């Protein structure tokens, strides 16, 4: 089931990336916040992947090319501004997508109706930090600017239609653009310019083409299960 894998992999991979902040976040409250967001996403991933097959097999035993997540979510955490920019781009998209899916009566409606309320908190968290960093010090402003620019080229892929999701993708894109623009304007930032996808590889995660940092991330995520199949504690 293509769509369950696409949405499930988005949630799983971003959950793992956010989990990498454990022990490294700038302040304790933020450590807890990022871990909580990661936990919400992991819960969503479990439900979605279970619609496509065995959740553990799908998470731990697939090769890189079998993952269908967008490339945005696999991008490394970078500095805190990079993580917030990734959160802003993705959670704004995910909230709009889940809102749409919750309105339908497709297989994702129950999960989407539940998870949209969680994602609203993720989006709010990203917005609050975008405002603080953009409207903070010169250093924080520069870092936020740099992060938004660096990740911009991965945002075009978010609106590639996913087979099996009955969503008005162009309307979703329009809504996303106006929400992100509104937050950036309030933060004293502006929408990055430049292409929404690179000529090289950006924007093919849904087809199983991933960026270089994804392989090492996957190796770390899967190695325990692969070394000790069926391990439990």
């Amino acid at each position, binding site marked *: 089931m293509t769509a369950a894998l696409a949405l499930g992999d988005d949630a799983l991979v971003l959950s793992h990336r956010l989990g990498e902040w454990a022990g490294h976040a700038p302040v304790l*409250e933020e450590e807890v916040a990022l871990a909580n967001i990661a936990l919400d996403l992991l819960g969503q991933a*479990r439900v979605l992947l279970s619609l496509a097959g065995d959740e553990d097999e799908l998470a731990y035993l697939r090769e890189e090319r079998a993952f269908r997540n967008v490339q945005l979510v696999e991008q490394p955490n970078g500095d805190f501004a990079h993580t917030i920019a990734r959160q802003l781009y993705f959670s704004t998209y995910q909230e709009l997508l889940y809102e749409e899916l919750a309105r339908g009566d497709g297989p994702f409606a129950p999960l989407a109706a539940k998870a949209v*309320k969680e994602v609203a908190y993720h989006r709010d968290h990203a917005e*609050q930090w975008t405002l603080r960093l953009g409207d903070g010090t010169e250093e924080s402003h520069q870092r936020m600017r740099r992060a938004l620019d660096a990740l911009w080229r991965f945002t075009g892929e978010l609106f590639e239609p996913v087979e099996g999701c009955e969503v008005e993708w162009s309307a979703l894109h329009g809504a996303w653009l106006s929400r992100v623009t509104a937050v950036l304007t309030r933060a004293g930032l502006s929408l990055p310019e430049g292409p929404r996808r690179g000529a090289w590889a950006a924007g093919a995660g849904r087809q199983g083409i991933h960026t270089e940092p994804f392989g090492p991330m996957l190796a770390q995520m899967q190695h325990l299960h692969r070394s000790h199949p069926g391990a439990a504690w």
Partner: protein
Amino acid sequence: MVTPAPHAPTALEEELRRLAGSVPDPELPMVSLAELGVLRGLRVLAPGRVEVELTPTYTGCPAVETMAADIERVLHDRGVPEVEVRTVLAPPWTTDAISAEGRRKLAESGIAPPAPRRAAAGGPVPVELTVRCPHCGSTETTLLSRFSSTACKALRRCETCREPFDHFKEL
């Protein structure tokens, strides 16, 4: 989701449901599963065979497995050999499902209970200044972090008594 035609619960089902509902929440042991509003249904499918429907507060709530195990245990102890606990997502749980008694117990234990949700469903309630400090009752409290010791709580501080406290945030 296939839901059989509802029927009025039998006396046995009512008794077993009370029993399952009395299980304390593993992370908020001051409230029961019934008070938290996560127990959705209980049916006797056949003699000695019971199905329980449980809904998670948050999709990733790690307490769900413990809740299921605890429900199985109390029903086994009551003499039901076969217990199946199913997780259901629809309709989504909201903090409005917490009973008045549950809210009172949360507040008594130092956790500010959630406010009733606004009509516009979903979404974070904007920073609102009316969350009352569960320690001193002051309404002068500020948000420290939207995410606290568990996914369902936010961390606030009372400006009057200066104590930090958890707030069960609206969902």
